[in-house]
């Protein structure tokens, strides 16, 4: 099988699995225990934390179970800790459900949410953001790279816009970390990362942040500075640190992306959904009058794995909220498929995809 669904999840690296296994065998003690084995596990945990802080250039890191938990902690944590200062939060309508559904819950608690609209390329307007800012705004939460179509939000500009105000910036970098570097001047107040999108393990993630007040959302033994109770999984933490260290941008992605764009543009009734400026590892295309599922199973018959717009929204019947938001025309919006590259993607995989698509296209048209 040729796996081109790396934005849904990735294959763990051998090195990461080795780390996970070794840590489970040798450092299985509870890092909060006072004995020597506990000390060693704690030592390893803190080394993993240091490494992640250094790579992300952030001051604090809390280990979580993944992107969704990190996003929940960021939103509820900031909202609950700052409610006396204001109850207004700004985000965008194309965020991940982990953000959108958390915001819905916060709305029930009395917070006011503004979701910025996006244009056909999935881009927000900085003017609209500027106008949305109020005296009681406490947080802006934006993803760095959109998981369905690859649109890059202008974090540098957003950060510059918020400079000097007390509005905090949270960036969900699940799809960008290890692939797109955030420039130092765009360093957010909070940053979400996930292990399994960078050839790490499912069940591992982190919320990184720079000095700020955060309220806990999970209560118990007070681990992770009291912000995320529960025995810390040192093997997952070490595996995350390793996956992050090994993650690096692949210059071939841009080349393959261009190659596929010109390939798909030759087909009648095929539209490229991802904007030209999108991140190069995600390419969404749509076929007129065809359902996305049919494309997915057609390509699968040729041993190529892609997905409909996103794994999270592909199981519900409705069109994805991202595709709705960018206003893709009626005849295309049900026919979106997403191709996403990973560290193990090769030149040959791209060639196979092309062949498989040619066959599938012939069959369905």
């Amino acid at each position, binding site marked *: 099988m040729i796996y081109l669904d790396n934005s849904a999840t990735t294959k763990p690296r051998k090195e990461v699995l080795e780390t996970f296994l070794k840590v489970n065998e040798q450092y299985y003690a509870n890092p909060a225990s006072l004995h020597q084995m506990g000390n060693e596990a704690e030592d390893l945990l803190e*080394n993993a934390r240091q490494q992640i802080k250094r790579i992300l250039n952030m001051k604090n890191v809390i280990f979580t179970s993944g992107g969704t938990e990190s996003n929940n902690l960021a939103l509820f944590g900031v909202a609950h800790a700052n409610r006396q200062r204001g109850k207004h939060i700004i985000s965008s309508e194309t965020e991940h459900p982990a953000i959108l559904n958390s915001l819905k819950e916060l709305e029930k608690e009395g917070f006011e949410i503004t979701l910025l609209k996006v244009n056909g390329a999935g881009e927000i307007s900085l003017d609209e953001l500027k106008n949305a800012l109020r005296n009681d705004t406490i947080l802006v939460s934006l993803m760095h790279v959109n998981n369905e179509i690859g649109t890059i939000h202008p974090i540098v500009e957003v950060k510059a816009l918020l400079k000097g105000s007390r509005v905090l910036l949270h960036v969900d970098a699940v799809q960008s970390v290890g692939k797109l570097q955030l420039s130092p001047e765009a360093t957010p107040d909070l940053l979400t990362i996930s292990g399994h999108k960078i050839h790490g393990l499912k069940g591992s993630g982190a919320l990184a942040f720079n000095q700020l007040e955060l309220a806990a959302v999970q209560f118990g033994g007070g681990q992770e500075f009291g912000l995320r109770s529960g025995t810390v999984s040192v093997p997952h933490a*070490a595996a995350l640190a390793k996956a992050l260290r090994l993650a690096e941008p692949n210059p071939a992605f841009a080349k393959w992306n261009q190659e596929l764009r010109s390939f798909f543009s030759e087909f009648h009734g095929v539209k490229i959904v991802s904007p030209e400026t999108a991140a190069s590892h995600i390419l969404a295309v749509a076929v007129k009058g065809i359902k996305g599922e049919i494309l997915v199973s057609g390509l699968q018959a040729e041993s190529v794995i892609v997905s409909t717009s996103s794994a999270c929204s592909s199981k519900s019947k409705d069109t994805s909220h991202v595709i709705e938001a960018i206003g893709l025309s009626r005849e295309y919006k049900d026919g979106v498929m997403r191709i996403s590259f990973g560290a193990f993607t090769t030149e040959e995989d791209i060639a196979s995809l092309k062949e498989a698509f040619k066959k599938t296209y012939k069959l369905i048209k």
Partner: protein
Amino acid sequence: MKTNQILVRYGELSTKGKNRSSFIGRLRDNIRQMFADLDSIRVKAERDRMFIFTDSEEDMQQILERLPKVFGIQSFSPVTETALTIEAMQAAAIAVVDKINREGKTFKVNVNRANKDFPHEKLEIMQTIGSSVLRNFPELTVQMKKPDIELKVDIRENGAFLMAEVIQGAGGLPVGAGGKALLMLSGGIDSPVAGYHMLKRGVRLELIHFFSPPFTNDRAKEKVFDLAEKLSHFGSSVNLHVIPFTELQLEVHKQVPDNITMTSTRRMMMKIADLVLAETKSQAIITGESLGQVASQTLESLNAINAVTHSPVLRPLIAADKLEIIETAQKIGTYDISIRPFEDCCTIFTPANPKTKPKLEKVEYYENFVSFDELIQQAVQNREIIKFPRKKENKFEDLL
């Protein structure tokens, strides 16, 4: 273009006449020792300035972080080396100025064209570089006399060297210029601060810590290691003497009444410190005692404790109040370590009602029934000596 060296200015030290060269040598050795954990570093001392070289960006970051704490340095500047072309110098100039706070500041370029083969005249270089900096940073205004920011461009045979940022140093005299003393380091908030005050006066430190396993655990020891590491960042390395104290402490407990054990325990510590002082050729004992803070820190207690030694006992915090001490601890980065919740040997065996006014004769009377000398000798002999800063070993390298 790379920032691969730091120019260090001596300041106060320059006026010290005949002692000058020994002070410079001292500072150079201190810097070498302090950065012993960073392999890439070279130090070159000249009569009126010193250079620190490294090719590792990570190590450079470490130096810039630690150097402001080193006593004996007035100020220092990162130096950026670049190729011998006008374009390279322009780019480097912009990068160098970009790192400085420029709002409302005045600016000038100063060129030293030591390399006479460089095919541009001094004035031309000044103008080209100056105008490209001003184009990029319109917030700057030119002022030739006493500008806030002076960009120095040194054109030599092997490259051009640029600097502009001037970072304040800690001032004072190099550690070691004021002799050596032994600090009693407990793990609490006060003793590291006491040590810091003496370092500021140029006193080099030896550290002594009393360790009572299994009543105190490895994390308590780790805490003291971390404090020692911090104290080794002010201009000289330090040795930590870890004294195995359990047996002696238990013996004291057996021999003297409960309300005197504390005084007696401290007398034992002082006796041990006196022996280590002699062995390390230190000239005084330093403690973090502050009058009235706890039962052992009344004048009566100090008398009873002090009676066992003839060495000067320096107590730089004796009249400081707790808030002042905490403020300093936070400033020097020891506070967060000191408040970690692990027992040290003073907090265990603490009697419910320690005597705040112990009588020396009584204490001596109770101690009289056995000889503690042998246990004291043993403790000193069996001590563990660790040098700080410790080389960082990354034993998890293959895992992470």
